[in-house]
């Protein structure tokens, strides 16, 4: 009798898990869909793209007459009729424009991410290590600044860039980026969790403050640093507003801005460019997904 009820319970549990799995997979498909679409569409010929998205493209020109030769239904098509590398060839070999913009993105984003992490981890150490009324107030100020929408900080940023004479140069974006308080907040939160005993032990061994920082604090918050880096990278890699305002010369614009502008004309190209633009982020994800999770999970201490 008893074993029967246990079996029943097990069946109930199993069917529950199946239902949950189906739910989860369904959600995952929705989440994956736009990504898969982008990749799939990048392998279509311009002709196929036109046939699928013609109605939308002609709408962009707001010229009703142009619609005639294309069906006015939009098709989301997952599998290309004929896999072609046409778009990629154009992007990579026919014109140097795209590669140049890609490089523009790199030299804007890499210094921001690198130096913001350096500045922020130093500040975070100081915030975590010593506390006081004044520090708490300062920290609150950082949180407020971090939360300010870009449109609020934009005006101050613009004024400073103007005063320093760096308007229309890359520095106008890089410098404010370096000092953005976002990572200070996150890293300070993580560093505060490092147990005091570690620091005390290091001190007894005669370690100085700099050694404590580089030998204990940084390694222990390694995964948090990586996950902050990833977040920063994604954010700045996709920036649109800053370059539009700070850089009037479109030669300096990163690919993200450029990408948003080729929407109307060569939709097919836009997909291929998007896929190429995704590669660095993808690599970082593949390399560091565990860090990302661990960085957030990190609760301090070497186990055992």
């Amino acid at each position, binding site marked *: 009798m008893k074993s029967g009820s246990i079996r029943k319970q097990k069946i109930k549990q199993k069917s529950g898990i199946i239902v*949950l*799995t189906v739910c989860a997979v369904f959600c*995952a498909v929705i*989440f994956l869909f*736009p990504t898969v679409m*982008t990749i799939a569409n990048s392998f279509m010929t311009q002709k196929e793209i036109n046939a699928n998205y013609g*109605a*939308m493209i002609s709408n962009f020109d707001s010229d009703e007459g142009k619609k005639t030769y294309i069906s006015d*239904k*939009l098709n*989301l098509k997952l599998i290309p009729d004929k896999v072609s590398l046409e778009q990629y060839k154009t992007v990579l070999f026919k014109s140097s424009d795209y590669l140049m913009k890609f490089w523009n993105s790199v030299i804007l984003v890499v210094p921001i991410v690198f130096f913001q992490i350096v*500045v*922020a981890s130093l500040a975070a150490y*100081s*915030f*975590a*290590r*010593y*506390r*006081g009324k004044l520090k708490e107030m300062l920290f*609150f*100020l950082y*949180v407020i600044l*971090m*939360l*300010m*929408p*870009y*449109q*609020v900080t*934009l*005006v*101050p940023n613009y*004024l*400073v860039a103007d005063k320093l004479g760096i308007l229309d140069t890359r520095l106008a974006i890089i*410098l404010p980026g*370096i*000092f953005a*308080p976002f990572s200070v907040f996150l890293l300070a939160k993580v560093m505060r969790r*490092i147990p*005091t*005993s570690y620091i005390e032990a290091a001190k007894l061994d005669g370690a100085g*403050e700099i050694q404590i920082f580089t030998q204990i604090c940084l390694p222990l918050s390694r995964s948090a640093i990586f996950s902050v880096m990833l977040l920063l990278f*994604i954010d700045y*890699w*996709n920036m*649109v507003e800053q370059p539009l305002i700070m850089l009037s010369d479109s030669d300096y614009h990163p690919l*993200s801005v450029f*990408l*948003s502008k080729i929407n109307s004309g060569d939709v097919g190209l*836009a997909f291929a460019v*998007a896929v190429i*633009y*995704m590669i660095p*982020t*993808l690599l970082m*994800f593949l390399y560091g*997904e565990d860090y990302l*999770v661990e960085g*957030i999970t990190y609760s301090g201490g070497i186990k055992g």
Partner: protein
Amino acid sequence: MKKNNKTIWGKMRGTLKRSERITELTFISPSIIGVLIFFILPFFVVIYYSLIDNPINAEFVFLDNFSKIFQNEAFQLASKNTAVFSVIAVPLVVVLSLLLALLLDTKIPFKTQLRASFLCPLMVPTASVVLIWQVMFHKSGTINQLTEIIGAHPVDWLKSGSGMVVVIVMFLWKNLGYNMILFLAALSNIPGDVMEVATLEGAGPIYKFFHLKLRYLSPTILFVTILSLINSFKIFREVYLLTGDYPFDSLYMLQHFMNNTFNMLEYQKLSSAAIIMALFMVVIIGILFIVEYWFGKDVE
């Protein structure tokens, strides 16, 4: 409370040695100097701008600019839309990502793959996602084709009151995954023995969730709320790429207003709007902190 003090290695100012105070200052100074130059000091200039009539005349008009901006219809519309968006989208994203996390916290297979696919939206460049959204929500796009099968009338999503729905969907799509990871992390940190004791004492899953898990999750809930609030202001990027400078009324956000005023070089208007926004944010953050303090006390 006592247990907590052990892990926080902060020291009070009074107990600092001289050498420690020097490190404290040198470590934090690059950040403070940068923040001062790029954010704080210019903000005072913004305050100054908001109090004068124009940069050439520079006559103090005190709160004139503010009263003007409150009467400005574009500003009213923009603040209303932004408020509506944040009030709906932020709680929604918090609740849904918590539900997703609870779903992935069960014994289902393929967890790693599922987790990775929820993070996917972070990877795709905004501009190309916008392209896909355009195809889906266009008047003759995918969504309308699907609803037509059921017999619904096609909706011009982006050029009607439903625009907000599209933006909220976009926001959820982009932010659910990361928030979910944060919740998953917090869920795995809940001490197992507490849950076991609860199970032994006959607590059902619903009781366990509301009376135990939620308590342990409350700092994360606050954190996710703050992050989502930041991100809710970043949705402008998508809206801008979808609809340009002057979208349909229901999509006209505060950031559109700021952007357009900036392009028209109306610094007075812009500065006072920025200050109003900043003050508003300070109030919200203050409230969040008080809530955290409250809940934090409760958990310890």
